[in-house]
C-alpha cells in the first residue's frame, strides 16, 4: 500500500470517529453490543464462559480471591514447565502432581494439547484435517444428527451461544470430519460435548486431533464407549457394581432396593468423564486427571462421588436419589474441587490396593476395526444425494481384482458379495498415498457382468438413507502391523494357529490378552504410533481381521482390500520387526524389488440372508478361513453384529428363527491355480448371544450355504451351491460381508 493510500485511509477513519462522537449516544448510533454498559452478559458470565440465569456477585469471595492468587502463582511454574518439551518424561512425578493440583485455566489448553500429544498428530497428518473437512461437507452421512446436536451443545456457554456462530461452525466441522475419519463409529450422541469442551481450549484442527486421540488413543479408547452396543460402557458399569458391592455395600443395597440401576446414573459419568454431572470447574479438574491417567479416573471418579455422598444418598428415596445425582450435584457438589480431587486420589489408591483400579480387560469390540483415514468418496454421494437412494449400478461390488477370471459366483444371479483378499503386487512402484488417506482402488477396466442391487443404509431414526460404504480400502498401516506381528508370532511358536483353528474369535481374544499382559501399562496418549510402538498394538487385529459394524440394521457393504506378503518378502523370521504405525497413517514403503512377484488371490464372499435375524438375536458371525493347502496361509476372519431382518414388506426368505448365510469363496495362488477355491478346511463359525457353532464347509465351493437356528444352535443345512440355490435376489435383503484376510501367502 502506498503511503498516499495509507494517509487517505487514516483520514477517513479519523473523520468517521469524530463524526460518531459528534453524534453522541443518540438513537441510531452505531454502538457495538459489547460496548453497551447495560449489556448484562458480562455480569452473568463466569470465568469459564458459562452464562448464568442471574447476575453473579460483582466481587469475588475471599476464598475465590485466594484461589485465584494461588492459581496465578502456579501459572508461572506452568509456563516454565511447558517450555521444556520433554518435561513430562524427565519429571514424571512432578508433572503428575501439578496436574492433580489443577492446571491453571490460562494454560489448560496448552497442557491438554501436551497431554494428548496433539502436536505429533498434526505433524504426522499435515493437511489431512482440511481434506476430511472438505469431504465431510459433501457427504458425511451424520451431518443431520450432528446439526441437531450442535444446536443443543453447551448453548449456555458464550462460545456456543450463537447459532451458527464461529465455534458452532467449528464444532460442526470437527464432528462431521471425524465421522468420516472413523467411519466405523461415525457420530454418536455424547461426542458433541466432548468436542465442544476441547474447542473451548483449542482451535478447530487441534480439537479434531485431540478428539481422535481420545477416541482411539491407547489411554482413553473412548471409541469403545460410543460404538454400537457400548461395550466399554457396559464393562465400566459392571466394574462399578463390583466396587460398590465391595466398598459401599450398604449404599448398593439401598440403591438396589429402590431399583436404581448403575446404568441409569453412571452413563454420563463414563461417556463424558463427568461433564454435566458435576459442576464445570470440578469437571475440568477431573478431565485434567483423566487426560493424564485415562480410564482409571472414570472408575475411581465414580467411586469417589458415591463415597463422598454416601450418607446423603442413604437418606434419600428413589426419585430424590436420581434428582440428587443428575440435577443437584451439577449445581453444587457440596465439596470444593481440591477436596474432591484429594478424595479421588485416595479412592484411586484404595482401588489399586484392592486390585480394582482397572475395569478388567477391554474386549476386542471396543477397538476400531476399520482403518482410520479419509475414505474415498462414494461415487454416488454427490452432495444432493445424501438422502436419496443411490443409483443401482454405483456400488462397486466387483472387486478391483480386474485380471481375475470370472468365477462361478460372479455369474450367478446375486452378484452381491465378494470379498477380496489379494496380494499387493510386490512392485517397488506401489503408488505413494498421501499420509492417512485411504486410497480408492483402481477401478476395474471392465464392469462386472451384472449390476449389483443398491445397498442402502437406512439410518433408522433419522430416515437418512445412506449409500453403502463402497470401496476397497488399502490398509497399509494395518498390513505392515500384521506382518510384524506375524513374524513375532512365528518366532514365538505356532501355538496361535491352533487357537485360530479352534475359533478365530477366541483365538484372537486370547492373543490380545496375551499381548496386553506383556505390554503392561503405558502413559501418555496418542493414536499409538508415536511412542514405544510395538508390533501389533492393541487396536488392530492382525492375522484374522474382523469388522464390527456400527449400524446393525443395515450392514452396508464394506469392502476392504488387503495386500499380502508373499514368501520371501520382508525380513526373515526372528529378525526384529520394524516399528509399526497407526492405521492408515503412514505412507506405504515400497516393497523390496527382490521380493517374489507372485500374486496370491483369494476371494471369499459371504451373503447373508438375514430373514428374522432380529428375532433370532444373532450377535456376530465369524467366517474364519483357516490355513489351507490352496494358499490361505493365515486365517481370514469376519465378524458381524446383530444381523438385521428382511426389508420391511418383503416376504421372509428363511424359516422363522433361522439365519441363512451364503458363503462362497475362492482363493489360490496366481500361478498354480488361478481360479483356486477356498480350502477344504475352511470353516464357518457363527456366534450369537451365548452360543456358537463352528462348521467346516463341506467343500470348497462356488457357493455354500449354512442355515442356523440360533435359538437351538442347530446347524440346519450346509452344503454347496448346487444343492441349494439362493433365493431370488429381489426377495432377499442382501448383506454383503466383506472380509479381509491379511498375510495370504504362497505355499
Amino acid at each position, binding site marked *: 500500500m502506498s503511503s498516499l493510500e495509507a494517509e487517505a485511509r487514516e483520514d477517513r477513519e479519523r473523520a468517521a470517529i469524530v463524526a460518531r462522537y459528534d453524534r453522541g449516544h443518540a438513537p441510531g448510533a452505531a454502538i457495538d453490543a459489547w460496548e453497551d454498559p447495560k449489556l448484562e452478559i458480562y455480569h452473568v458470565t463466569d470465568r469459564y464462559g458459562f452464562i448464568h440465569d442471574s447476575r453473579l456477585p460483582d466481587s469475588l469471595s475471599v476464598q475465590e480471591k485466594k484461589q485465584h492468587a494461588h492459581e496465578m502463582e502456579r501459572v508461572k511454574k506452568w509456563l516454565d514447565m511447558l517450555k521444556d518439551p520433554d518435561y513430562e518424561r524427565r519429571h514424571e512425578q512432578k508433572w503428575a502432581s501439578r496436574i492433580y493440583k489443577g492446571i491453571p485455566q490460562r494454560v489448560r489448553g496448552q497442557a491438554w494439547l501436551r497431554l494428548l500429544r496433539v502436536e505429533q498428530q498434526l505433524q504426522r497428518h499435515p493437511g489431512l484435517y482440511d481434506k476430511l473437512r472438505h469431504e465431510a461437507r459433501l457427504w458425511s452421512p451424520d451431518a443431520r444428527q450432528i446439526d441437531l446436536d450442535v444446536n443443543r*451443545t453447551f448453548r449456555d456457554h458464550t462460545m456456543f451461544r450463537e447459532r451458527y456462530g464461529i465455534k458452532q461452525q467449528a464444532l460442526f466441522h470437527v464432528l462431521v470430519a471425524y465421522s468420516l475419519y472413523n467411519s466405523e463409529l461415525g457420530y454418536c450422541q455424547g461426542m458433541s460435548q466432548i468436542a465442544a469442551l476441547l474447542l473451548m481450549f483449542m482451535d478447530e484442527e487441534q480439537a479434531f486431533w485431540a478428539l481422535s486421540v481420545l477416541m482411539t488413543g491407547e489411554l482413553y479408547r473412548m471409541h469403545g464407549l460410543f460404538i454400537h452396543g457400548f461395550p466399554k460402557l457396559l464393562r465400566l458399569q459392571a466394574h462399578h457394581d463390583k466396587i460398590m458391592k465391595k466398598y459401599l455395600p450398604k449404599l448398593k443395597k439401598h440403591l438396589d432396593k429402590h431399583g436404581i440401576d448403575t446404568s441409569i446414573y453412571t452413563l454420563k459419568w463414563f461417556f463424558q468423564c463427568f461433564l454435566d454431572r458435576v459442576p464445570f470447574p470440578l469437571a475440568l479438574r477431573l478431565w485434567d486427571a483423566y487426560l493424564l491417567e485415562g480410564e482409571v479416573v472414570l472408575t475411581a471418579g465414580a467411586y469417589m462421588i458415591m463415597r463422598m455422598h454416601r*450418607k446423603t444418598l442413604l*437418606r434419600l428415596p428413589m426419585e430424590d436419589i436420581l434428582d440428587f445425582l443428575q440435577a443437584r450435584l451439577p449445581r453444587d457438589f457440596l465439596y470444593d474441587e481440591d477436596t474432591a480431587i484429594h478424595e479421588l486420589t485416595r479412592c484411586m489408591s484404595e482401588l489399586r490396593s484392592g486390585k480394582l483400579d482397572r475395569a478388567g480387560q477391554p474386549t476386542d469390540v471396543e477397538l476400531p476395526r476399520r482403518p482410520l483415514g479419509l475414505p474415498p468418496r462414494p461415487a454416488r454421494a454427490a452432495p444432493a444425494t445424501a438422502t436419496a437412494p443411490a443409483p443401482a449400478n454405483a456400488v462397486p461390488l466387483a472387486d478391483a481384482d480386474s485380471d481375475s477370471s470370472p468365477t462361478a459366483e460372479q455369474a450367478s444371479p446375486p452378484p452381491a458379495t465378494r470379498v477380496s483378499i489379494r496380494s499387493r503386487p510386490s512392485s517397488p512402484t506401489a503408488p505413494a498415498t498421501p499420509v492417512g488417506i485411504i486410497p480408492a482402488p483402481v477401478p476395474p477396466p471392465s464392469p462386472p457382468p451384472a449390476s449389483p442391487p443398491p445397498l442402502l443404509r437406512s439410518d433408522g431414526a433419522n430416515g437418512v438413507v445412506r449409500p453403502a460404504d463402497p470401496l476397497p480400502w488399502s490398509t497399509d498401516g494395518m498390513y505392515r502391523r500384521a506382518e510384524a506381528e506375524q513374524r513375532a508370532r512365528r518366532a514365538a511358536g505356532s501355538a496361535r494357529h491352533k487357537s485360530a483353528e479352534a475359533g478365530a474369535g477366541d483365538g484372537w481374544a486370547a492373543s490380545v490378552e496375551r499381548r496386553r499382559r506383556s505390554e503392561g501399562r503405558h502413559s501418555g496418549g496418542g493414536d499409538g504410533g508415536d511412542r514405544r510402538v510395538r508390533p501389533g498394538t492393541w487396536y488392530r487385529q492382525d492375522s484374522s481381521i474382523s469388522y464390527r459394524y456400527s449400524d446393525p440394521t443395515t450392514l452396508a457393504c464394506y469392502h476392504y482390500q488387503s495386500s499380502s506378503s508373499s514368501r520371501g518378502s520382508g525380513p526373515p523370521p526372528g529378525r526384529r520387526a520394524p516399528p509399526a504405525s497407526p492405521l492408515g497413517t503412514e505412507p506405504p514403503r515400497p516393497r523390496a524389488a527382490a521380493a517374489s512377484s507372485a500374486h496370491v488371490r483369494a476371494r471369499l464372499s459371504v451373503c447373508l440372508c438375514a430373514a428374522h435375524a432380529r428375532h433370532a438375536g444373532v450377535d456376530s458371525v465369524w467366517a474364519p478361513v483357516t490355513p489351507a493347502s490352496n494358499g490361505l496361509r493365515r486365517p481370514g476372519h469376519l465378524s458381524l453384529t446383530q444381523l438385521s431382518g428382511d426389508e420391511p414388506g418383503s416376504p421372509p426368505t428363511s424359516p422363522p428363527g433361522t439365519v441363512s448365510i451364503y458363503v462362497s469363496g475362492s482363493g489360490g495362488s496366481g500361478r498354480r491355480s488361478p481360479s483356486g477355491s477356498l480350502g477344504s478346511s475352511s470353516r464357518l463359525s457363527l456366534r450369537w448371544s451365548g452360543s456358537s457353532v463352528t462348521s467346516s464347509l463341506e467343500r470348497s465351493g462356488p457357493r455354500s450355504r449354512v442355515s442356523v437356528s440360533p435359538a437351538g444352535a442347530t446347524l440346519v443345512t450346509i452344503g454347496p451351491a448346487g444343492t441349494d440355490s439362493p433365493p431370488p435376489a429381489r426377495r432377499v435383503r442382501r448383506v454383503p460381508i466383506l472380509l479381509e484376510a491379511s498375510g495370504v501367502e504362497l505355499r
Partner: protein
Amino acid sequence: MSYAYLFKYIIIGDTGVGKSCLLLQFTDKRFQPVHDLTIGVEFGARMITIDGKQVKLQIWDTAGQEAFRSITRSYYRGAAGALLVYDITRRDTFNHLTTWLEDARQHSNSNMVIMLIGNKSDLESRRDVKREEGEAFAREHGLIFMETSAKTAANVEEAFINTAKEIYEKIQEGVFDINNEANGIKLGPQHSPAAAGGMAAGGLGGSQGGGCC
C-alpha cells in the same frame, strides 16, 4: 407426599422431536428452547390427581438416537404408559413411528397404554404432517392421539393426564395386575410419610451440613 398409585411412563421417539421439552413443560411448567441433548435416560416425576386420587407419575425420558435403543429398550419393561412423540414439522420422524411402535410392543407388557403425540403444534407454518395423518395412524394402531406444543404448553398436561386416566381405567377394569410391579404400576404406601416426607427435592438444601466426612 403420599400417593395412591404410581405409574411409570416412558417417552420415546426420534431425536430432536421435543421429548425432553415435553417432560420439562409437564414437570416444571417451563420451556427451554435449547435443551441439552439427552444421553441415555433422564428422569422426571410429578403428582397428579385422577378421580380424586393422588397419582404419582414417574417418567423416563430417553435418548432418541438409534444407537441408544439398546439402552432405552430396558426401560420399556416396567412401564405402564408410553408417550410416542413425533415432530409435525419433520415427516421422517412420523415415518419412523412404525419402528418405534414395533419396538415398544415387543419389549413392553402388552397392556401398556401408548399415547401418540405430534409435538411442535405451534409451528403451524412449517407443518409437514397433517393432523389427520396422525389421527389415522393412531386409529390404525389403537393409540390415543394428541397434538401438543411443549413451547406453548398446549395439550401437554392433557397428554400426560389422559394417558394416566386410561391406565387408571384399565386398573378399574382389572386389566392390569397392580400387584405386579413389572406392569409399571405401584400401589402407594399405606402409611406414607417417612419415605417421601422430609426429603423432597426442595428439602435437599438443608442436607449440606450432614455431608460425609
